[in-house]
């Protein structure tokens, strides 16, 4: 799963497989981070407006 685990080899199989895997995980992680951060931002701005 990670290059530091002993059976890891830098071959095409590992690169493709884990490339795809980390790519998918990356998209999901980035997407969720964006949504949560933006929701937090929107929430703060909302409450700012309601104080006016």
């Amino acid at each position, binding site marked *: 799963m990670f290059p530091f685990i002993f*059976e890891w080899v830098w071959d095409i199989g*590992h690169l493709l497989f884990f490339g795809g895997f980390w790519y998918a995980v990356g998209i*999901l992680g980035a*997407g969720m981070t964006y*949504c*949560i951060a*933006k929701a937090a931002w*929107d929430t703060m701005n*909302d*409450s700012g407006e309601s104080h006016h």
Partner: protein
Amino acid sequence: MDAALIPEGAKRCSFPKFMLGIAIVGAVLLWGVYAMLLCWFKGLNQTNMNDYYGFALWIWADLAVIAVGGGAFFTGLLKYIFKIDELKNIINFAVIIGFICYSSALLILAIDIGQPLRGWFIFWHANVHSMLTEVAFCLSCYFAVLTIEFIPNILENRQLNKVPFFHHLAHNMHGVMAIFAATGAFLSFFHQGSLGGVAGVMYGRPFAFREGLLIWPWSFFLFTWSAAAFGPCFTLLVTRITEAVTGKKLVKDNVIHLLAKISGWMIFTYMIAKIIDTWYWAYYTAPGLGFELSHFYTSNGFYGYWILVAEVIVCGVIPGLLLINKSTRENPTFRLIAIVLAVIGVCINRWVMVLQIMAVPVMPFDTWALYIPSWQEVATTILPVAYGIILIAVAYRYLPVFPQELELNRRSEVRES
């Protein structure tokens, strides 16, 4: 009692009645949980599996729920990537069904492995050449996608949505859903396929073995295709059951017809590919290894040619044709027959690709091995069904799952009041 949680304007049964239903299904669930704990604490000797049936009822259940759960990724693909907008009226439900199917699959796998506490080895010590590794990775990732797709629907609950943060979160997640759906489709393509690959790569088992393209046996592509084809049928079937139980129309006919039509064409084209695959395997692959077709279907007490006919013709070609043809597709009875047959068909296919493989003797002096599951296996297989019913009941009661529900039921409610 729980009126504040129920979507605005929606009519639901009384709380005690709801709880009674949950309690009945809950009892079945507990039975399954008991069997599950037996398997975990006493080991797999609680099952009737043996060294001939290393894969048995559970792996079949796993493959079957993942196949029928394929409705989620395929509907998502159609809605978000191919922009078929009508499907927004059924996508929430497709996602919930997918969520149930995939969480069940993961649970069953956790019971099925001999050393559940080492389950993470499949990730940590991954052998990237094994189809099962691909299944494990894509399945877990795709389960994450389904959870992400399910969250906005949960946050739309009347009370949760009052919390500004949740309100915004749901809104933002809807905004980028296409990206999640695309990732889900990518992951689904691979794990659905790999599940077919699991059987297809076993070149020591001529009943399972298939030639293919590069590292992927033909069964890889057939499994992806069949999940996309039959998954929507299962979505339609569960929708139909939910409508029957709630006594309400929940999704407009044009949406149902559209999904049924897409599914019908997918099934029809899949069946053509499946027939070619079966023919090639029967006339080239297997005889090339010294096996006559009759070797796989005779001299035993259960597996005959009937299973091939049932899978390919009765529960394959026929539902495909019924759904392609406009008049039968739009006739509720024929449509119901077609989707029931289709769901049975894909389950038979997964059965054959798991259990019949184990049953067929390979060494010339070996014998057929038949197996009957133990009650613990049956109970743990029913467990996800009970869990699914409960989750659907709770989701339907408290979440705006069906966008068209209010519109479709307004008139009758007016009449009642």
